[in-house]
């Protein structure tokens, strides 16, 4: 996305000045590459995705009813039930408190992936900054819950491994593997979505009629799957951090 999408141009026109002053007033003064367009495409698309999600959630909330649930309520309940059942299976009991975060992650990544299929929009998740943001948030979340549930000393003792004399070996390995989780979450999501866009574009330039449909369909499937995988892996990391041997 080298040129601006219409939504980005709109945001830059309306909010360009304030965003510029805000960025330059931060302690490490941040100078955007092009002062006319401080908001990049991915940021504008992210904002749009969050706006859409907020709108959907407000719509569902305003139409909640116990006796006659509508279609959107069914969808919302089904989503919530899927996330809660899965975290219950993987993490064990008392895992409903993780559902809001996991569900928001899933819905954000899913809608972020799918919005790239609409002609004049782009996927925010086709940019490493956005996927890195999601991965770092997930990393901080599961570590924070691990520290809170098990206490800092007991949680850090996990990094030492099963026996004390393996600690000098286990500690660097565990730290590197935890940091590699961030990298793998980032790159997996970014590469799937970016490669899907690229492959569709390549086939579009080869055979403009008919064949790209297959790749668009594949991209839809991959978007859903990757959003689910991101949420599933975050659940597994949470279970590793929070699980206590009773």
């Amino acid at each position, binding site marked *: *996305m080298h040129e601006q999408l219409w939504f980005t141009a709109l945001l830059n026109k309306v909010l360009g000045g304030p965003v510029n002053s805000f960025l330059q007033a931060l302690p490490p003064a941040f100078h955007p590459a092009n002062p006319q367009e401080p908001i990049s495409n991915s940021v504008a698309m992210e904002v749009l995705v969050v706006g859409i999600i907020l709108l959907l959630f407000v719509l569902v909330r305003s139409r909640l009813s116990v006796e006659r649930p509508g279609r959107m309520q069914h969808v919302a309940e089904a989503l919530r039930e899927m996330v809660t059942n*899965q975290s219950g299976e993987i993490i064990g009991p008392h895992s409903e408190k993780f559902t809001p975060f996991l569900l928001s992650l899933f819905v954000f990544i899913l809608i972020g992936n799918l919005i*790239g*299929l*609409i*002609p*004049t929009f*782009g996927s925010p998740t086709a940019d490493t900054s956005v996927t890195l943001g999601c991965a770092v948030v997930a990393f901080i979340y599961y570590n924070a819950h691990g520290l809170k549930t098990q206490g800092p000393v007991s949680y850090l003792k996990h990094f030492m491994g099963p026996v004390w004399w393996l600690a000098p070996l286990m500690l660097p390995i565990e730290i590197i593997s935890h940091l590699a989780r961030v990298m*793998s979450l980032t*790159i*997996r999501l*970014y*590469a*799937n979505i970016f*490669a899907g*866009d*690229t492959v*569709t*574009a390549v086939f*579009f*330039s080869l055979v403009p*009629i008919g064949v*790209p*449909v297959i790749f*668009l*369909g594949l991209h839809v499937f991959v978007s859903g*799957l*990757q959003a*689910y*995988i991101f949420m*599933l*892996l975050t659940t*597994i990391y949470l279970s590793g951090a929070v699980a206590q041997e009773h």
Partner: protein
Amino acid sequence: MRKTMMYVFVVMTILLLAMPVYAQGPDAAKPAIPWGPAIAAGIGMGLAAGLCGLGQGKATASAAEAMARNPGARPGIFLFLILGLALIESLALYTLIIAFKLLG
């Protein structure tokens, strides 16, 4: 029948509105890419894709056999299958990213 065909055409219309933002013209390969990184990217990606195919094939075969032996365990096996496939796929994707970086 008519309603089915109508749905099919609506879905096809939506899918056909492809986004040609990244489409390059036919002469976009004029700036010469040095041949070293190009061969490395090609061979590396081919190796990664082939071995990833082998790994995923083994995982799928095990999952299919396990499901045949114990159809009641389907949700759990499906979960492990999806997880395993995504993790193996991500290794090939790391190589893809390196290939993109090599090709500039």
